[in-house]
């Protein structure tokens, strides 16, 4: 069943994004930013954790999980070390994604030439 929920959740998010892009003048940049904020809001209401329970790793794939992780990391930081903890801990769980992106993107830039 996890596979079905993963299919429905990621599919639905992509469907919403595509409908927004086709029918308004917003670009992918606007939509991804909106989805990150949406993920943080879903995390705030503890909805996203329940989605992850149902959809498994499929729910961790869309950019919304980025906002959710940021929110929970910030909250954990506050519980550990007060206001300072928010600043110290905010990017801790998303670090893997950002670091991997920067490292691989830089390696590819060094190796490959731009293609048009």
């Amino acid at each position, binding site marked *: 069943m996890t596979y079905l929920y993963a299919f429905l*959740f990621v599919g639905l998010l992509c469907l919403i994004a595509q409908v927004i892009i086709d029918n308004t003048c917003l670009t992918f940049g606007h*939509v991804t930013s909106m989805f*990150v904020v949406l993920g943080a809001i879903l995390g705030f209401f503890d909805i996203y954790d329940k989605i992850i329970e149902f959809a498994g790793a499929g729910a961790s*794939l869309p950019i919304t999980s*980025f906002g959710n992780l940021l*929110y929970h990391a*910030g909250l954990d930081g506050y519980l550990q070390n007060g206001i300072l903890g*928010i600043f110290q801990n*905010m990017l801790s769980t998303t670090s893997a994604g950002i670091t991997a992106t*920067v490292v691989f993107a830089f390696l590819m830039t060094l190796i490959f030439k731009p293609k048009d």
Partner: protein
Amino acid sequence: MNKKQYEKIVKKHTPKEDRFINALSAFIFGGLLGVLAEAITKLLRVIFNLTVLDATVWMMIVFIFTACLLTALGVFDKLTTFFKAAIIIPITGFAHSVTSAALDYKQDGLIQGVGSNCFKMAGSVILYGVISAFILVIIGVIINV
């Protein structure tokens, strides 16, 4: 030829994009990516005996690496025309935006080009993610006090 005729001709030759087909392919391929993510995570857990969290992070790294490689090979843009939002909304879109910006500005040098431009599009995701998460944490703390 007056303006109206010209507009007619332009309209005739603009490629028509079927919004229904676009939305459907975004839904189907996005869903398949979600299933693939879950399958890879399960596979990693079984083969390497990882925890759920570690396997999820490895899965994301695999997706990011694939997206970076496909972008560098020039395949990603062609895939976008078929898959639409399905590969932009997952983490692959984030990796694609960094890699493509870095590659596009490679000719301007490593500092002025790659260094200052690689977060051109991905920057908005990080910026608004951090700002919204920060505000929500503060709100949550105030409510629970």
